[in-house]
Structure formats: structure tokens, C-alpha cells
């Protein structure tokens, strides 16, 4: 039997994951004041506003990788039961946590030969993962085989694009996970770098807009420029406690592409949000290319 897994860095909550056929959910931890917190294990509902308010007050959380032993704990029951596993996860290029997972999986494969373990690397983090996780789950629920789902992912993952901006670059600078950021204090004067998820699954800054309105227009124009069947696939707008800005972008998109454009608003998870900080908004859409 095939079992599906995903993780909290994809912005998919355990409830949504379950609705789309996932039986495994891996919580990616972050730490605040020396206390390690596992989303949806240490709390049931994510208090998006409370978390990002804490960041606004000056708290800088850190994130940490899961150990090999923890991965063994997570996957061993399904390996022992002889179930095949498909794990739809956030970008390998952004973390070392999957090195530990590889070791764990190699150990389990030796212990339980014959079990198949496959992955879909969404090559992204937060909201860009959301539609890929959901659609892979729907294929599973529709009775598609593991190979059919993998074939779909090989075609589709690169067609999901995400463009976003954030208010305060100190979070990105501290995490070192965005390349191409100018070494200026530009956010003090409203200069916002526009960042996108590269085809390699990394965050890359490629331009700057002056003022929030121009940054929002940039996101809208990217959807118009690169969007491929956007209406058919729907648009996903993620935000780090900036629902008003997110809805404003959504409204601008509907004005531009049609009122019937379906938009899903997503709260960015705290672990990834620790690297981006509050007041960030990103648009994810089905695109010609990233």
C-alpha cells in the first residue's frame, strides 16, 4: 500500500494534508528563546498574527534540522508494515535536513528490503509547495499509481512559480538563504527586492521596486507575463501576517485577469517565516516557467 507524507514547511496544515490523502505529516521545528517548537505537535492551530507579532517585537527565531533518529522514528512504522512511501517535501536545495533523512532511509531500506521510498521535491518553500502537495494528493485519491504521480510531478513542479517580497530584509540576511540581495539598507526607504524561487529550488533576488504599491504591481505583472492557464489552476497567495496586502494583491489580480479568478490565501508557516519575517506577500501560479 502507498502512504503519502508531507511536511509543515509546505504551508499545508495537517488538516488539509489529511483531506488530500496524506497519512504522514512531518513537523519542521524552529526555536525561540532556547525552546524548540514543533508546529502542529506543540500547538493545534497556528496563531499567525501572534507569531509574526513576536518577530516584529524583535525576536529572531532559529530553525534546526531533524536528526537521522527522528526520521527513522517517523518512517519506520510504514517500512515495517511493508508500505511504499511518497514524501512530497520542501526544497532540498534550502536545507541540510534531507542529508539526515537520506541516512535514515538508507538504514531503513537495509532493514526492510523491498519497501519503495520516493520523493517529490517541490523545489520551493512555503506557499509554492501548497498546490503541488494538494494536487499530488488528489491524484493519489483518484487512484493514480506511485509512478503516475511521479511522472506528473516531473512535468508539473517546474511549472509552478512564486514571486514575493518582504518588508524587512534582516531576516533573510540573517538566514543567508537568498542570493543576490544588494548590500544596502534599502528597506528603510521602502525599496523592496523582488525574490523568486529559482528552477533549482533556491530563493534569488533579481530586482528592486520602490514602495509597496510598485512591489505589488510587480507581482501582478509577473502573473500576466508568465502565467499559463492561471484561471484553470487558480492562484495561491501566501503571506506572513499581511492579510490586507495579500487581499489587495488578490483584488488587483482579479481586476486584471477576471473576477472569476479563484484565489486561495495561505498563511506562511512559522519555520519558513522565521527566515522571511513579517509583512511578506508572495504570489504562486502555474507558469510557462519559473
Amino acid at each position, binding site marked *: 500500500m502507498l502512504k503519502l507524507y508531507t511536511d509543515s514547511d509546505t504551508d499545508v496544515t495537517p488538516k488539509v494534508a489529511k483531506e488530500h490523502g496524506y497519512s504522514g505529516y512531518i513537523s519542521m521545528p524552529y526555536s525561540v528563546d532556547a*525552546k524548540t517548537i514543533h508546529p502542529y505537535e506543540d500547538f493545534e492551530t497556528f496563531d499567525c498574527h501572534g507569531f509574526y507579532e513576536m518577530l516584529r517585537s524583535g525576536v529572531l527565531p532559529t530553525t534546526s534540522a531533524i536528526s537521522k533518529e527522528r526520521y527513522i522514528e517517523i518512517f519506520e512504522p510504514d517500512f515495517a508494515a511493508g508500505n511504499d512511501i511518497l514524501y512530497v517535501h520542501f526544497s532540498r536545495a534550502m536545507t541540510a535536513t534531507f542529508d539526515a533523512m537520506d541516512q535514515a532511509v538508507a538504514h531503513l531500506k537495509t532493514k526492510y528490503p523491498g519497501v519503495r521510498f520516493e520523493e517529490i521535491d517541490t523545489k520551493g518553500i512555503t506557499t509554492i509547495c501548497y498546490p503541488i502537495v494538494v494536487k499530488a494528493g488528489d491524484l493519489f485519491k483518484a487512484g493514480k499509481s506511485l509512478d503516475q504521480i511521479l511522472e506528473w510531478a516531473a512535468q508539473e513542479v517546474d511549472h509552478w512559480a512564486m514571486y514575493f517580497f518582504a518588508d524587512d530584509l534582516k531576516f533573510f540576511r540573517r538566514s543567508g538563504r537568498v542570493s543576490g540581495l544588494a548590500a544596502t539598507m534599502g528597506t528603510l526607504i521602502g525599496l523592496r527586492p523582488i525574490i523568486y524561487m529559482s528552477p533549482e529550488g533556491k530563493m534569488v533576488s533579481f530586482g528592486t521596486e520602490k514602495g509597496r504599491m510598485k512591489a505589488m504591481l510587480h507581482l501582478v505583472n509577473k502573473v500576466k507575463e508568465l502565467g499559463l492557464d492561471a484561471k484553470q489552476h487558480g492562484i495561491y497567495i501566501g503571506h506572513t501576517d499581511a492579510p490586507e496586502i495579500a487581499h489587495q494583491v488578490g483584488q488587483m489580480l482579479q481586476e486584471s485577469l477576471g473576477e472569476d479568478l479563484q484565489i486561495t490565501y495561505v498563511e506562511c508557516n512559522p519555520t519558513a517565516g522565521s527566515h522571511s519575517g513579517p509583512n511578506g506577500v508572495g504570489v504562486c501560479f502555474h507558469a510557462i516557467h519559473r
Partner: protein
Amino acid sequence: MNIDAQLYLNLIRGGAAKLAQERQTINELNVFPIPDGDTGDNMYMTIEAGSQMQGSTLSQAADEVSRGMLLGARGNSGVILSRIFAGIAKGFQGLQQADMGQFTQAMQCAVKEAYSAVAQPVEGTILTVLREGVDAAGNAPTLETFFDQWIAAMEQSLQHTPELLDVLKKAGVVDSGGAGLLCIAEGMRAALHGESIATMESPNAPQAHQTVDFNAFTQDSILEFGYCTEFLLRLQSSKVNLDSFDESIIKDWLESIGDSLVFFRDGSIIKVHVHTMDPGAVLSKCRQWGEFLTIKIENMTLQHHENHMDQRFKRARKPLGVVTVAAGKGLADTFRQMGADAVIEGGQTMNPPVERFLDAFKEIGADHILVFPNNSNIILTAKQAAEIYADAHVEVIPTKTLGEGYYALANLDADEAPETLVQSLTEAAASVTTGLVSRAIRDAEGVKEGDYVGITGKDILCSGASAEEAAEMLSEKLDAGSADVLLLMAGQDAKAPQALQETLQKKYPMAEVILLQGDQPVYDYIIVLC
């Protein structure tokens, strides 16, 4: 020549003696991972603890030196240094004496051990200098040539560290840990040749708190850097199974709550160095596995401040320095946070003299210096100072207002070549429109004393009964609706800056209104349209 216990101990003592001489120089290079200025002290105390040990065989002597350093290790660089010599001891395991092949192998063990002790190895540090040095000397036929090649390669590697680590490049220094290791190697080579190095130590043995200014951390201070927390933990058989215990559980946890982690286990002893905001949690957690042999906790904000005071006079030259002029604590603090090395007090009612600029240039000690006068009356003075000063290439960005200076400084990209920086910053300053709101001190045409006036350049554009009313009218006159960003700098007498920000944001939805508490005198509000 083979290396035996006595020669090995002599080499260690030679290394310690040389480092004792250069300790202070090494301290002054220290900017990574945080500029706490104690690398020389920490490395010296570490090697000094090892240099007092004895042993009859090479293996015993190396083990004893390693144990001494383990117990004496202090700081990030000290702990890494102790692991280098632990690696050498591993390489010498069971040997009476070592030939060149065995010695070279032991040095390779040192590299491996040093890298494995650091949770997230960073290149451009002592690790790189050691590795590149050992790689270059790998095939040396004799000890003498090994030390010559090792030292030459480490010197070269050290000079490249700023290329690998941005923080070094910006501070204009090489890596302090690498420099300390080079000193030790030079001392070892001198000992190999039978030279004696007179130490200048003992009476002035390093004392970490000797010059700490406790006023640097007041009741209102914010804990910026956390605590440098170091300890030796003896694992207890009553708490863990010593044979099967996997220490990575402690390491993983420490990595999740702190940074600059250096961690290693030697038998039942675990050595930890970590920077954390909550040392109490670290100690409580670690006691579940063992008991402490030693503990050292220091507030790194104090360490940083202490070092900052020393560096005012002694730091190495920076490639680029920045001087601004500002009135008001809020703006002065903001300019410093934005990277200004010196903020000269001054403004409309107080023009600083040339001497103040010259003092600032001297204090910064940079190759290139950029000056932001931020007032049209101060530009000429700044230019005179720039012409007089011969020890750096000084250029003035002719910013006429605080708004222009703030905007230009926020655009400063330290990675840009100094030749093009001046032009791009001058253009940035010229691209904004600045308006000022101030209280009229006498009657004038259409304005009564006590009214608030809105000014741009020398023109009075509007007046109102309150500063907020005048600011709103001034924004209208300056066509704020066509701007992308409206910066609102609130002065020390501004009554309702947040309400004004909200009003302007509603009125100009296409512009982003950003409020900054400048606390400047004279001007209740400075409006900058970008």
C-alpha cells in the same frame, strides 16, 4: 630528524611563547563570529595550559598536551586550537617517536579533527588557514622544510581570508584565529631551530574582565549578542549509558538554540562553546546527561563594547568609512545603525568646524571616506576638511538636507567600487524632494510668529496652526500623490506623528508612507518624497 616527546613539548612551548608576544595584535583583528576582541587571549590561555604538560613517550606527551588544552580551552578559537592538537595526539597514538610520514599524517588528523569539532565550519577562518597550510606542506622531506612550507602557505592563506569572509573584508582585517595559528607555527619553528623567545607574560596574564566597562550594559540595554557560554560536562553513568550514548543528541539540541557552536567529546568529557540568549536553559538541559566540571558565561555585549573602545585607536584600516552630520539622537542612532562610522553633531543652528571632520576621519582610519553633510551650510566645511586630509581619499556627497542624506546612505552599496559610488549616491540624493516643517520665530508675509510653516529650499509654501496641518499642506504642495515613498521624519517636538502618518497614507494610497522617529530639533517634520 624524528620528533620525540621532548622536541614536541619544546615546539608547543615555543608556539605559546610567540603567541604571548603577539596576543594583543591578534585580539585587535577579532571581528568574527562577533567582534569581542579576545581571540589572542583565548588562544594563548589554551596553548599555555597545554605547554605545561609532560610525557615520556611522544604519544603520552601529545595526549597530555591535548588534555591540558581541553581543560584550558577558552572561546571559539581556543576550542578549535585544542582540537587541532587533539588531532595531532590521535595521529601520534602509540608512538615513541614519529618519522616524517607519521608526523605528516598526524597533521592531517589535526585538520580532520578541527573541522569535525565545528558544527558548521566556515571557510576564511583558522580552519582554512590550517587546511591549506597542511596541504601545501604535505610532501616535505624534513621537519624544517615542513615548517617553512607550512608557514609560507598559511601566510598566503591568511591574506586570502577576507576574500572568503565578508565581515573580514568590510573590517579590513584578516582572520584572527588564522593569524594566531600562524604565530604559534612561527614559535614552533623558532623552537625547532633552538631559538628562545622571550615572553612578555606572567605579570600581565590575561584577565578577561580587567577593563570591562559594566556601564556598557545598563538597565535599558538590549541583549544584542547573548552570552558566550562554555563548559566541560562530565557524562555521568548514573544518567546515561556511557558505552552507547550518542552525544549528537546534545549537539543537535545546542545547534537549535544557539550559534557559533563548537562541540566535541573526549571519553566521558564533553566540551561545549556556544553563543546563546539563554544560558540557563543550556545548563539545565545539559545536566540531564552529566555534571559540570567548569562553567564560564560572559555577556558578549560587554565584550563587544570593551573591544570597540580599544579599536577606536587601534583597529586596522577599513576599505570604506562613512561620516554623517546629524542633529537629534534618533537620527544619529539611525545613521549609526545604517553603517555610519562617525556621526558629527550639527545642523541648521550648529555648523561643525573643519576640525571635527578631521578628527572623525582620523578616528575611522579608512582608505576611502564618504561624507554626508546633510545641510547646505555644512557642505563647504566638509569639502575643506576633505581637501586638507591627506591620509585617505575623502569625498563629499553634497546632501543638502537630512532627508537627502538618509536616502543616499540607505542606497549605499558597500560592494560598489568607490569610483562609481560617489556618482550614484549624489544622483540618489538629488532624486528626492525634501520639505521641512518648522515653527515661525517672527512675523513674515502671511505668516504670524508661532505658526507652523512648510518650506522647501528657501521658499515658504504654506503655513498652519499645527505642525501636522502644515505637514499635510506641504505634502500636497510637493505633489506627494505622485511619489512611490513618503518618508516622514518626526522631530523632537512633533505632537502626533502616527496620526499624521495614517492621514497621509489614506490620502496618498499609491505612496508608501514610512515614519521615522528622528528626534531632530528645529524641524517638527521632515518630509522626503522618493
